[in-house]
């Protein structure tokens, strides 16, 4: 038999999405004890000592909502046997930053992204750029045709993709591979003129719907007056965090 702590350690090491529900308070006739737990992984109960099937069902339902909101929260569950105050601890899949193009912006981008606790993957087709010496902090450095590497990847809503290759002719085929993916963020570098032309080709030749094109953040990054590669990297990650956490990116003092 397994234990809660064993399951929790496995979840942390495998980077799985999970919710640990702990009963904090019990009112009414319910025989559930404070401190009882239900660990939900992949939408299923991985471990529980709640002992009340109706409560477990309610917890399972609420867990899905908490996980999609990525927010830990105390929730009151009204059950026939009484009211339970349950704390839902959300352990979302760790966010993944996929950096396509290992040029001069990628270097500070990877460094800052690691400080922000992203799992960072760098892709380039040139070993001279995509290597461990250049990216000692990256979790994965992949060398290969960039569009093809992206095509082979499983892209989940925990993925944030930054297209910063050395040229437009590389960004565009990459974007074509990922534009319909589940990735939460897709950003592409480039001038407004080139981006406009690219989007027009997507509309005309690939019949990509307008709302799909609108998902793409291009030109990439927040407007903070960047000048250096590191500042551009910060502007890109500022935008990524804004999308992840749902911020507005205005100065707090301007409210």
């Amino acid at each position, binding site marked *: 038999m397994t234990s809660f702590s064993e399951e929790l350690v496995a979840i942390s090491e495998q980077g799985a999405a999970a919710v640990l529900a702990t009963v*904090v308070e019990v009112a009414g006739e319910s025989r559930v004890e404070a401190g009882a737990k239900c660990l939900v992984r992949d939408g299923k*109960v991985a471990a529980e000592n709640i002992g009340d099937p109706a409560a477990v069902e309610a917890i399972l339902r609420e867990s899905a909502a908490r996980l999609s909101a990525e927010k830990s929260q105390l929730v009151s569950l009204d059950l026939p046997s009484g009211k339970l105050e349950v*704390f839902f601890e959300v352990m979302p899949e760790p966010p993944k930053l996929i950096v396509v193009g290992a040029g001069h912006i990628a270097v500070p981008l990877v460094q800052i992204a690691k400080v922000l606790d992203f799992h960072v993957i760098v892709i380039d087709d040139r070993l001279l750029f995509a290597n461990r010496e250049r990216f000692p902090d990256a979790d994965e450095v992949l060398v290969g045709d960039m569009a093809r*590497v992206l095509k082979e990847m499983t892209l989940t809503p925990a993925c944030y993709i930054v297209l910063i290759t050395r040229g437009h002719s590389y960004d565009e085929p990459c974007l074509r591979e990922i534009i319909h993916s589940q990735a939460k963020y897709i950003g592409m570098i480039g001038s407004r003129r080139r981006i406009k032309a690219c989007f027009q080709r997507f509309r005309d030749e690939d019949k990509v719907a307008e709302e799909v094109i609108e998902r793409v953040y291009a030109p990439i990054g927040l407007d903070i007056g960047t000048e250096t590669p590191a500042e551009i990297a910060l502007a890109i990650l500022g935008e990524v965090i804004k999308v992840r956490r749902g911020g507005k990116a205005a100065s707090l003092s301007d409210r």
Partner: protein
Amino acid sequence: MAGLGSCYEGGDGEGKKKDSIYHQVKEFLDKGETLAVATIVSVKGSTPREVGAKMVVTAWGEILGTIGGGCGEADVKREAIEAIRTRKPRTVRIDLLDDISSDSPAVCGGIMNIFIDPWWPERDQEAGSAR
């Protein structure tokens, strides 16, 4: 994960996290110890840490992690040792409003509710009906 025509460039790859709070919890449980996990379950106003922040307290009052530095941590530690002794969980309300006039650096101004949950090996093994 890398596709056709790509190769993997060195490194240990999947940077496994071995430092989660549950790694520490498991380590203590494996030694047969009882410990308490204190979690911020709700807040009101300005608090040093967010809902979900955790701190582990051992039976000797050793602390791992933080729920906000000086803000109420001593109270939580005392209650945690009591929870470990009685093996009964409890919720503690920490009112940081009182601190404003003090010269403590931990001036926050909010209220936080902290659930203190004792863990011991037998309880941890009750993982039950995995389905």
